[in-house]
Each structure stands twice: as C-alpha cells, then as structure tokens.
C-alpha cells in the first residue's frame, strides 16, 4: 500500500527552483533511498515533504493530501524528519530532546515515558547521557539522539536526511543497521537521502537517483547496480 506519494513535486528557495516536478513513492514497510550528489536537491526533497519550505505538486500521505498542510500538521499525520546535520537542541538535556520529540503527542506522560525507555534500550549510550546537555554528545551519539527524537512522535514514515554526514564509516554502518532493524522489526517505513551510495543501496527496497533536481533513474537496488552506465555515472562503483 502506498504510504507517501509525491507527484510533480516542485520546490526551491525564493526565485531559485531546485526540484523540478519529481515523482516519489514510498510504500508501507519500504526503505526508499534517494541518491544524489551535492546540490542535487536531496535535502530540498526532504524539506518539501516535511513542509518546511513552500512547494507545489501533489503530496499524499496515507491517501490524504498534505500539500497544503503546515509542518506541524504533517508531523501529527505521522511523518517525522531527522534533519540534516542532526539538529539536536544543544542546550536541552538528552531526555528533554526526546520529550521535545514527543511534542505533538497527547497520550500522556506514561506512554511517552515508556517510549523514552524503549529508545534508551535501543540506544544505551543515550541512557548513560540522559541528563547531559545534548551539545556535549559526540557526533554519532547526536545522530542517534536525532533519530530517537524523531521516533518519539511515533511516525509511520521516517525521513532521514544524510545520517552518515560527518560520521566515521563504522558508525555509519551501525547506524544503518539500526535503521534496517527498525524497518524489519517495527515495520517503520523510511525515506532516506544519501550521498553514500554503497552503504545505502544495501538496505534499500527501491532507489531514486536525483540529479540537479530531476529524477534520472529509479528501480530496485539490484536493477540500478546491474545497469553499467548508471553505475559508472552515478554510483561510482
């Protein structure tokens, strides 16, 4: 079943159009990866979907149009974003960051507390640092925090904007493993944008290749890496 369907998605900043009528679909239970180089429009795609920049085209989430919805309404609908560069709140403690992630929830502190414990058990490092300022965490820990914080809103779809940015390869690998497990065991659907084609393609159900705001190829990871011209031109391996 289609969870997210964006058609003719166009977005940009002021007079500059970055995305030119792209179509993206995420089905329930999928990990969809958008690959692209710097300036291809990956982050813009994320922002357009999460409603933090003005956009045109049709965006449907679970069959309802979210094209006109504001960013907070989109979060309530069940789309959580891990912003690029992590975007943790440095002056809040780790725990308060997680509580901030539960901002839209109205199901009481008991349920929210249960969720915090759940993510603490997935990311034990966060529990050790629960009362520390988030700004004092290392890059990898902050990325874990950013993901856990996004999950606090109990999303159906997680938007991950370059989680590998600035992290050591091994940390990135483990981070991707966790995302993969969340997908398998919790049924979480993920839309991930990455530059790191190698890593991301292993876990992807489907892949979109984005170049200067246009989707130049799409298909399963196997299909794309089987195509020599695409592999050489865009994937670099």
């Amino acid at each position, binding site marked *: 079943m289609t969870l997210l369907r964006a058609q003719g998605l166009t977005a940009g900043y002021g007079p500059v159009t970055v995305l030119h009528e792209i179509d993206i679909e995420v089905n329930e239970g999928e990990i969809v990866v958008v690959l692209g180089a710097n300036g291809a429009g990956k982050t813009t795609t994320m922002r357009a979907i999460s409603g933090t920049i003005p956009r045109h085209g049709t965006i449907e989430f679970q069959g309802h149009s979210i094209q006109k919805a504001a960013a907070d309404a989109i979060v309530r609908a069940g789309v959580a974003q891990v912003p690029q560069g992590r*975007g943790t709140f*440095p002056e809040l403690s780790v725990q308060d960051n997680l509580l*901030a992630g539960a901002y839209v929830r109205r199901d009481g502190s008991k349920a929210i507390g249960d969720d915090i*414990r759940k993510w603490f058990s997935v990311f034990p490092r966060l529990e050790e640092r629960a*009362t520390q300022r988030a700004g004092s965490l290392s890059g990898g820990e902050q990325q874990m925090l950013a993901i856990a914080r996004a999950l606090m809103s109990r999303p159906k779809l997680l938007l991950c904007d370059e989680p590998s940015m600035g992290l050591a390869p091994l940390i990135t690998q483990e981070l991707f493993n966790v995302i993969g497990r969340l997908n398998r*065991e919790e049924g979480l659907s993920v839309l991930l944008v990455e530059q790191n084609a190698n890593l991301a393609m292993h876990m992807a159900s489907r892949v979109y290749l984005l170049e200067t705001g246009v989707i130049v190829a799409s298909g399963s990871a196997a299909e794309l890496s089987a195509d020599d011209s695409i592999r050489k031109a865009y994937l670099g391996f």
Partner: protein
Amino acid sequence: MKPLISIKSGGPASWAIRIACALAVGYILLWIPTRGSNSLIDTATTALTLMGAALSLNLLLGFTGQISLGHSAFFGIGTYTTAIFVTRWGWSPLKTLPVAFVVAFVVGAVVSLPALRIKGVYLALVTLALGVVFPQFIKWPKIAWLTGGARGLNDTGFKFDKNNRTYEIFGWNPWGNLRGENVKPFYFWIGIGIVAIIYLICRGLVKSRVGRSLIAIRDNSTAAAVMGVNLAVTKGIVFGLSAAMCALPGCLTAMKGSVVTPDTALLTVVGSITFLIVMVVGGAGSLWGPIIGAVVFELITEKTSDWVDPDKIPSLIRPIFSWSDTAPAGGIFALALVVLMFVAPLGLVGLWKQTIARVVSVVPRPAGSGTLDAPESSAGGIPTWRPQQEPPAGDEAE
C-alpha cells in the same frame, strides 16, 4: 576535577538548601520594607521594576532567542495605560494592571508578525523602530487629549487619604503598618507582587512542554518545526506574553511617580537597552538571571550615584573614574559587560553555576523518574546498539 560534595537532586540536602535560600530571600524581603531606609525601599522598588521588565525580555530573548529592542515601548504602554485610566477616568491604579496586560499583549502579538519572518539583527532593527517611535507617538498632538502630549500626565498614582490610611486591594488590606507619610513600602509590595506573577508565569512556561519547544525554537528552529512545533503561533504568543508582562512593571512606574512624561528614561530606547543589560549581566536563558542582574544593577547605580564628586570615589579606583563628570554607573556597566562576555557569557548566574559545580555536584534524579518507572515491555526484539569505535565523549563541550 572531582567535586568535593555531591548532593542528590530532590534529596534532603537539596531541600535543606532550598529552604535556607527561601528563608534568606523571605528575610530580606521583610527586612527592606520594615527596617530599611526610605531610599533603600525606593532603590529596591526600582530594582523590582527592572526585574519584571528583564524577566519578560528573558522569556523572549533568553529562552526563545528572539531579540527585542522595543520592550521600552511595552513598558511605556503599561505606564500610560495606568496613567490614562487613573487621570482621565479615575480608575483605581491596581485595576489598570489587567488592562495594561491585555493592551500590551495585543500590541506585542501584532508586532510579532514581522518577527515570524525575520530574525537576528533585522528583528533588532524592527523592534528598535518600535522603541524609538513610542515616545514620539505619545507626543503626537492629535492624541494629546488622551496622553497629555510632551508635557505628560500628573497625579497618576494612588490617591492616599491622609486621615484614613487603608489601601484595599479588592476589599483586602494587607498593609497594616503603613504609618504617617510613609507609603514607600506600599509600592515595594506591589513590585513584589508584579515580579512574583511574572516569575511564576515564566517558570511555569519554561519548565513545561512549552518551555522545551521555546528552547527548541531558539536552538534550531527548523528542527523544532519538524518536531511539530507551530513556529508562527508559538512565536506570536510568546512575543505577546513577553510584551504583556513587561507592561506590568511599567504600570508600577506610573503608580509610584506622580508625573509621567514620554521622556522618562525607561520609556525611551534607553529603557530597552537597560533591560537588555540587566538580563545579560544576570544571565540570559536562566530564570534567576534577570533577578540577580537587576539587584546588581541597582546596587551599583545607587553606590556610585555620588561619584560625580571625585572625593567620594574610593581612593583605590579613583584614577579610573575621576575624569567622569557624571555618575559613572553606565561606564562601570559597560566595562562589566565586556569582562563578563569573556569570563562568563552566561552572566552572573552562569558564573555562579560554573563555580559551584567545582565544589558541589548535583546528582540529577534518574532519567524520567516517575513517568518511567513502569516495567519495560515494548522494547521488543530490537537489539541494543553501542558504537565501539568512538572515544568516550564525556566533556567534549565543557
């Protein structure tokens, strides 16, 4: 360095310290109006005025990260609301407080509309314009029938009946010991009331879900938006609330002075700057910062007020300040600000926290105690993840 003492948050030692602090504050609050000289009570009342304004600015700037150089205008709205209602329509001054609150809230919320789109230095300029325009607006001849124009308004405070000295607040008279001509403690207590209200509003907001969303907006507004915080509504309400709270100490200024003019220092841009200095010196983004800042500011202003005469300056620092032909409080604060920005960017409260952290460590309550005590059930089969490669990141940013 390992702290010498460690105290459990919420434990008996922590409560003992809290009670001791509360008693000390209570003692000072009772000592000033009953034993203090009239000039001390006056100084304290002025400090309370600054406290209220700086506290409300702190909610906006310290916690939400939106600068305002227009708070003198909101302060002035309070002053003029009280002055106008008292002189034109004969209201009791205390009853004008809620009116001023509402008027300033509306003006603040309207002014916040540009604040939704701009930030930093641009927002500073827009709000600065408000601060500059306000006194001119009051002087505008077409509304002089209401505001008194440049000459201002007279008899804006309480009308004390010399024979029968009871000043009731909604039928309640708590000021038993006001004798003779001494009405200063009366204003002091109003100031205490106003500051208490503002402090409690700020505290209630900051320590809640809303407070987290404010700090989130300050630290990373995009991330706050994708957490589901409605930036426009939140910013607008906080701006309005900050303005409304800032009007209350403004009302007090009208109540205690018998004359209100548009050139009163705190009603001009000087007021905005003063509030800002008080807040920054005390500690931006901390609930107690503006309170400490206002006390220090008033103490220094008061202590140095007769330093115009070089012979009154303590001999040790006479060479530094003797050239000045006005009281050097402004210069002292400028110097203090420069030094503080290097030593303690988080103000006196930040400096205190840093220092005390070397001696006493406060052990926080275990993560989410209370809400998190329920037995773990839902973590399910997700394996734990612990990165091996990273160095322990303990004090990276300390």
